[in-house]
């Protein structure tokens, strides 16, 4: 085992006690080794921060994947559940008789992407950046304004992500699918949200085989859209 591997194991906490002791003794007299140990600790902390960010995004995705019924207040929940049951029952009859149409599938599952992003968290910043202004317009449901503003800020994955969602909300499915497809191809995050909305856009565009591929991708992995993807696949 070379020193790089030893240092990596030491920082990960998997190096034996004896070898850890030897390494620390060496670090006292070798500044290069001492520096490498500190660098490795910094990398580990950075990766942990990155992991927290990823987990936070995952939790946000769970929230955005929740239906309005789940997010509704307790007072209305029983009535909404009952109403949903009637809708689902009616839908089942409809589907049995006529089969699932693409239009109804989209309508049943599409909800504009909801973000708990920094713009609305913990108080509102007074001086918003152009991107934050665009994000605010999107969150307020002023999609044409959001689209205009997102188009005026520098291109980034996050900008494109919101741009695609603005197009989707404005029923410009072709443009939305194009952007979401690019984001998916470059493995941008949040991958499951991108894939979910891409699949919905493809359903709307009648690209059913492509949509199925994306839904299968979601069904095979643990993500907030897994069950919904399975449900659509069963209906397609």
């Amino acid at each position, binding site marked *: 085992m070379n020193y790089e*591997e030893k240092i*990596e194991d030491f920082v*990960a906490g998997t190096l034996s006690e004896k070898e850890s002791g030897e390494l620390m003794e060496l670090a006292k007299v070798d*500044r290069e080794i*001492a*520096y490498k140990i*500190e*660098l490795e600790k*910094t*990398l*580990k*902390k*950075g*990766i*942990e*921060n*990155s*992991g*927290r*960010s*990823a*987990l*936070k995004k*995952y*939790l*946000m995705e*769970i*929230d955005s994947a*929740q239906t309005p019924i*789940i997010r509704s207040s*307790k007072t209305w929940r029983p009535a909404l559940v009952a109403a949903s049951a009637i809708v689902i029952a009616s839908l089942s009859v409809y589907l049995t008789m006529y089969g699932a149409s693409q239009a109804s599938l989209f309508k049943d599952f599409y909800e504009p992407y909801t973000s*708990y992003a*920094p713009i*609305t*968290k*913990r108080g509102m910043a007074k001086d918003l950046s152009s991107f934050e202004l665009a994000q605010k317009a999107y969150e307020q449901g002023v999609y044409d304004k959001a689209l205009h503003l997102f188009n005026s800020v520098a291109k980034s994955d996050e900008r494109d992500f919101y741009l695609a969602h603005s197009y989707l909300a404005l029923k410009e499915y072709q443009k939305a699918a194009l952007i979401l497809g690019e984001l998916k191809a470059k*493995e941008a*995050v949040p*991958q499951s949200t991108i894939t979910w909305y891409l699949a919905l856009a493809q359903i709307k565009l009648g690209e059913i085989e492509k949509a199925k591929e994306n839904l299968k991708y979601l069904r095979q992995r*643990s*993500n*907030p859209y897994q069950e919904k993807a399975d449900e659509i696949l069963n209906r397609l």
Partner: protein
Amino acid sequence: MTKNSTLSLIQKGEKKALEQLYISHKSEFVQWLQGSYGASETESIDIYQDTIIAMYENIVRGKLKTLDSSIKTYLFAIGKNKYLSYQRGESKKTELSVIALSLETEDNEPTHEEELSTHVAKKIEELGTACQKILQLYYFDQLSIREIAEKLGYKNEDTAKNQKYKCMQKLRKLVKPEIPKNSSTS
């Protein structure tokens, strides 16, 4: 599912168990924080998410294996501390980072070190999803190489280990030129 089997599943990397835990306590937690402390809904959701992350880290690091109290009691205790800490303004220095609230598992550290780790976190984004995933699974989710190999579909442990090594080398190259040697802390 019992509370301790939930902890065990989360410890093994079962995201579905974490998702269920997150959903099942969210509404009550948010209402409690709003009602008892006057927090806004957005603040309450944010604090709840940070609370879940803190609990998750305690589980995967082996600090929380079993619970004598209920999961709800545990979550609410962390949540209360987090909100009071937030109110005291202790989290202001990390406000730009959505996740960087001081966790119970962290000690107070010099600001420059926090800045360095934030810088590293940004560099990790340049690595690409595959490298991000394997490094996060190893260092944050604390999965073993064998578990990572299974989860990510690598042929065997050696392939996963080799991939992790390459990703770390890539990250070192990205980060090293920007971290001067005098930035190290003993």
